């Protein structure tokens, strides 16, 4: 179920195609935050290809619907067949897991592990980067210019404001021309690199940049990685009834 968390993270990285001339870390963080704020609804079909050590490759498909204004999202599993019809619903502070076979909703507590993974419900709470982190350095040294592949990027490091943030340290590489994240490294409390995310490509839809291909690498358990790709992306309004238990139940009838 780690894919659910990754899906949320990736779906948050939705950039506005505005050029940026931001030169401070705080401004770059604000840029990422504003990119994460989606005023319209979003619907997408998501495919996740998970590769885990000694477990082979697993392909998951799901339909993802999100409405930031109501702090709600709905995930309905489409593949593999055994998971088809299962889903996850978040509405405000409440987070449920739906199981089609038993037609039951299970409330997931904030620190409860989802599907036995390191992801927990607290990971899905919408919080701005600027609220959680602050620049690790100030001044001219805070941002470095690097080339990632052939793309000019700004590299900067941020650290958690409080001890309740999942990763105490992160390093970002964002495009110099529009501030879209290209790469993100997450570090543990002891300073070990735990995860690296690559945002491989973005699509432009209705003046929004939406990441449509990403790679998540588990740096702790080497060999675990997930490739995510998006298709059928739409920013059209979603009916409010979609973000309800009844909707999920009706899908499996």
């Amino acid at each position, binding site marked *: 179920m780690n894919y659910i968390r990754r899906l949320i993270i990736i779906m948050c990285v939705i950039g506005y195609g505005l050029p940026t001339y931001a030169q401070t870390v705080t401004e770059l963080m604000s840029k990422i935050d504003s990119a994460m704020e989606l005023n319209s609804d979003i619907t997408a079909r998501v495919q996740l290809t998970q590769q885990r*050590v*000694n477990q082979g490759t697993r392909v998951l498909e799901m339909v993802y619907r999100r409405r930031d204004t109501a702090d709600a999202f709905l995930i309905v599993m489409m593949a593999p067949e055994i998971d088809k019809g299962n889903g996850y619903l978040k509405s405000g*502070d*409440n987070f449920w897991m739906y199981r089609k076979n038993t037609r039951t909703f299970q*409330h997931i*507590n*904030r*620190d*409860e592990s989802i599907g036995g993974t*390191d992801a*927990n419900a*607290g990971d899905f709470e919408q919080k701005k980067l600027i609220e959680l982190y602050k620049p690790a350095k100030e001044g001219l040294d805070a941002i470095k210019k690097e080339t990632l592949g052939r793309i000019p990027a700004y590299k900067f490091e941020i650290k*958690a404001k*409080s*001890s*309740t*943030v*999942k*990763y*105490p340290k992160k390093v970002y590489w964002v495009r110099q021309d529009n501030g879209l994240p290209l790469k993100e490294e*997450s570090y*543990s*409390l*002891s300073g*070990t690199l*735990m995860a690296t995310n690559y945002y491989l490509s973005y699509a432009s839809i209705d003046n929004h940049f939406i990441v449509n291909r990403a790679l998540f690498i588990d740096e*702790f*358990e080497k060999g675990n990685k997930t490739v995510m790709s998006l298709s059928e992306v739409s920013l059209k309004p979603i009916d409010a009834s979609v973000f309800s238990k009844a909707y999920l139940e009706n899908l499996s009838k």
Partner: protein
Amino acid sequence: MNPTIPLLSFRNLIRQRRKNLLLGAAIAFGTMTLIVATSFVAGITDTLFNRVIVYMTGHIELNMSENGSQYYSVHRRPELMKQLIERHITGIKEIREGVAVFGRGIGNGKSDNILMVGVPEKNNSLFTQYDVVNGDLDTFNNRDIRNPIVISESKARYLRLKVGDTLRVRLRTINGQQQSVIMNVVAIVKSTNMFLEMASYARLTDLKTMLGYQQSESGSLQIILENPSTARRQADRLHRALTSPPAWIQGSIQSAPVWVSSFKSDVSAVASLNSKIKVVDGNHALTKKTVLMGRAFAIDHGITVGSQVTITYPLFRSNTTASLDVVVTGLFEPRDDEIPQSVILIHPEIFFGAYYAHLPRLTSSSAPIIPCLSGLLVPEWILQDRSHTSEELKKKNQDLGRLKLKNAVLDVRTMEETASNVLTFDAALRTITYSAVALLFVIILIGIVNSLRMNIRERTREIGTMRAIGMQPRDIVNLFLYESLFLAVFSTMSGYILAIGVMRILSLIPIVTTTPIGIFLVNHHLYFLTRWDTVIINISLISFIVILTTYFPARAAAKLECVAALSHSEG
């Protein structure tokens, strides 16, 4: 009573030596069976209570969770809680600190989930439950070795680890942060107890540091009792005595003293609070960002709505201070003169974020006496209702997650709820053992009863003779009762000695098994716990049955006329 009756009874017992020997042997066998069985069951219970549950949850456990977390227990002021425990719980053998974590371990090319349990240094009696397969347990206490870990043989095999190898572990701290640590394998151990085989052991101090505890803080407090059967009663008593201190921060703004607290956010409490204070400037609605300050205090210090203020306060167990930055969202006028202007009221989300992270110092006057606000402000922790079954406890925890309380929540639990699966297993095993023994005992008893009745019937003519020479019916009854009493005492004592011998022999046989039966073994041997009270009850019960069985036919025979008794013939 005629003093010769006991002597006559004893002589009769000797006279009919062969018959009484056989009868006595049957009684002794029944006694032995009963004592061995009860000792075996008592041994199992003792093993579960004192070698399994004691290391899992303790007999009584005080679990303090923050932010609705069900994974970690954090006692920020454990010394105060221990004082309360010692005041209200009797027969305490030990109060332990329960710190454990599930993480992901990476060995040599293999990974697996791993349960790490914190073990105090120099006092790791837990390791007596294990056989060392490889390595040296003494190195566990060696401070020169960083993050030593003792792992089970099965886990070491799966992760392909040897002594001296390193194990990388990913875990989550008490605050939810990702943590990665490198552990050094110092010993590989093996236990016949399947519960203990699941865990790996780190030094308690190391594990607390890894998980983000301060050394002065504690995980759950696990109470080990002299008599575990009193756990529920004592837990109820402790629960009734627990009351939370109010959550106040005594600090200062621009050197002016302030009292900072938080308000309960339920509808009735908010309504009551609004009847005590009137928000005269700023946001009237109580939201997650609410910070209310007395208007007069604000004016005196040049603070307005929207100002960011820094509240500085002294820390608990420290000479340093912490600061809390808040943005004032509203100014209030007290409707009640009791409420001082220097009181600042903050939403629980902001308040407890600072309160638990940087615990304020408790002073002798740690809270202003404001009776009109009592019940409206938050306590340091909320005491949960007692649950009496594991189902109740599970439901309570689920509800706790939904409530999303910002306060810490204290739960008093006993092994009856937390280790109910182990206790159910114990109860089932007791039932099976006692049923089997009861069946065997009844069969033996029927034989004994029948033999006693036949014995008296066979001696009816003897009774007639004794009656003919002037013996009273009551003396005849006493004669037989004494015979039975002597028989019962000698036989049950023999049965007890036999039981001791049998138990000793059985406990000498080594049993090497990896099956769940291993949980009943102590150092690869069966374990019997013989309790004097149980032995006395067993012996008394058998003696009583033997005497009762004798009484009725003896009385019937004694009532017979001499002629009828003398003319009685068998067959």
